[in-house]
């Protein structure tokens, strides 16, 4: 029987408590974009301890993520989060920054390191350097294709974690443009970035989370899951840091079910699953860069359904 890991990201304790994690195997705790994100695990270390304990109590693996772009002033807090993770028994640390990788490697050599998507793994040579610094798995940079990922994973013998569903990160900033406008709105920081905010211009759309920019469309690899499994991938992520508990649960249920069917040699996806997928996208579906094309394109049988359905108005 093949074993898979399905994981997701949760930014704070409240969201963790509200989410049904029964379909997951592991959870990344923390918000990588913003230090002022509401009750961010990475800034509230008591919550982080509690979160790790809760995840492990549910029989899942607890990973702690770290900031995508930490400057010097964030490092003392990162250090504390790493100490907390080590003390409470986190199962791994996700790093997006070479400096943080060095900190973990030098100070917490026992903690497995997962390389995050912002760490920019583009080449096998790069992955080899990170492996020398303790990397146990990597999420490739989102810009590279499945062919490239496969070559890297095989060449370096480092397992890859694949984002299979959710909004793909497109960028991270040091500033939040929402702060320039929030005085005119009812909601303010730190709640405002959790609204369903989209930047839109004609048929282009991106999800804004303040300091982060995400794809407007949801990456969806549901119908390509059999190919991913055939290529040896076993760790899959549903990127849901800014999604609702219902999104996390419903998408996980679909992917868990699909993985179980793939394990039994059944590569079909039922229409009800597609219906749920479409219900949970505001803008449409894409495959990211996995097929070597423009990141917002969709390749596969759901091409028509993946077209822009702006916030359900299609």
């Amino acid at each position: 029987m093949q074993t898979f890991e399905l994981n997701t990201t949760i930014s704070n304790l409240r969201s963790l408590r509200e989410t049904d994690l029964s379909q997951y195997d592991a959870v990344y705790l923390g918000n990588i974009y913003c230090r002022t994100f509401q009750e961010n695990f990475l800034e509230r270390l008591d919550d982080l301890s509690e979160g790790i304990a809760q995840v492990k109590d549910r029989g899942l693996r607890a990973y702690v993520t770290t900031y995508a772009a930490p400057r010097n002033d964030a490092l003392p807090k990162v250090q504390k989060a790493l100490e907390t993770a080590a003390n409470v028994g986190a199962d791994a640390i996700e790093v997006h920054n070479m400096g943080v990788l060095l900190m973990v490697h030098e100070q917490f050599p026992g903690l497995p390191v997962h390389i995050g998507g912002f760490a920019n793994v583009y080449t096998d040579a790069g992955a080899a350097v990170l492996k020398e610094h303790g990397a146990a798995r990597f999420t490739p940079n989102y810009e590279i294709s499945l062919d490239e990922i496969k070559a890297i994973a095989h060449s370096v013998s480092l397992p890859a974690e694949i984002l299979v569903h959710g909004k793909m990160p497109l960028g991270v900033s040091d500033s939040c443009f929402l702060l320039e406008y929030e005085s005119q709105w009812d909601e303010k920081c730190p709640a405002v970035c959790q609204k369903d905010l989209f930047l839109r211009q004609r048929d282009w759309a991106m999800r804004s989370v303040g300091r982060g920019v995400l794809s407007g469309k949801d990456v969806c690899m549901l119908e390509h899951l059999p190919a991913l499994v055939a290529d040896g991938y076993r760790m899959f992520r549903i990127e849901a840091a800014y999604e609702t508990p219902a999104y996390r649960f419903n998408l996980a249920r679909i992917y868990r079910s699909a993985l179980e069917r793939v394990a039994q040699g059944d590569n079909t996806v039922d229409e009800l699953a597609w219906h749920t997928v479409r219900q949970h996208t505001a803008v449409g579906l894409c495959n990211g860069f996995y097929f070597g094309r423009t990141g917002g394109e969709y390749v596969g049988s759901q091409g028509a359904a993946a077209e822009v359905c702006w916030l359900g108005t299609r």
Partner: protein
Amino acid sequence: MELLAPAGNLEMAKAVVENGANAVYVGARGWSRRRDAYELSDEQLHEAVAIVHGGGAKLRVAINTNMQSSEIPALLDKMEKFVGWGVDGAIMTDVGAIAQVHRCFPQLVIHASIGANILNNEDVKFYRAIGVSQVVADTKLTLRELVARKADGYVGIEVLIHANKCYTYLGKCWMSPYHRLERTTDGLGKDLFRGSPNRGGLDYRICLEQWELYAGKLLLEPRVALKNEAFFYLDDIPSLIDLGVHCLKIQGREYPVPLVARIVRFYRQLIDAYVAKRPDPAFDLRPWRLQLEAIQAERDAKRTNMTQVLLNEARQPVPHRA
């Protein structure tokens, strides 16, 4: 204190040296963070070495895209050729490529590109360990952060004094290829990844589109800006010189030669004027500010036009490869 200038062609290489650059950087065609029109072929690069060295300056070659794994052997072949021609340094991003180039050419000075997005002092330690001897400071870093980096003292600091300050961190943005990515290989088989600033150099400046902001179906703001501003340093130049940063870098391979030459001449004269009087807390920047305003107006007009061309290009359909 080194003044580093761009060269998007041989004419620019000659002009910037004549106007006071101590060092010049060029992009190897298909391998640097600019579109191929502003990069040099190998033959041109060979010629650039002679031009720049003939003017008493150093030449660095930018090979700072995030290439494919399969392209690294070609990169090493290229680098062997460049080292043989006497280039003085390489500007690079990918940690694997840096480590391999350092292993093969241990005497070559490697500069970590702006694309490496080196943000903190631990980052600097990491890049130093894999063979980097000078790092480009991210445009978002404050003077205080540069002081902290300088205090560590084990790596050279390069500060951009004319460049773009994007909304996102450079090297951590793929908004452009999310909207349009064209896969094209050049005559030598190098994938140009048109539309990806990290992989091929061409950035459609998607952030500068006139975005509307929606909350669900509700239009919150009819026009929001993801700030991406071109800047010139002026007020901080004396502080940077006093701080002892190793290099002040001017970006702009894509601008016309006369404009870039003018920018280089301006900074050469400013640096020389301040160094002759330093330390001088009363150094008067007002006449320099007037000069810079005129240069800035010319630069802004060119940039606005280029941005519109790029955004239009981003809307064009992508011809798919077989």
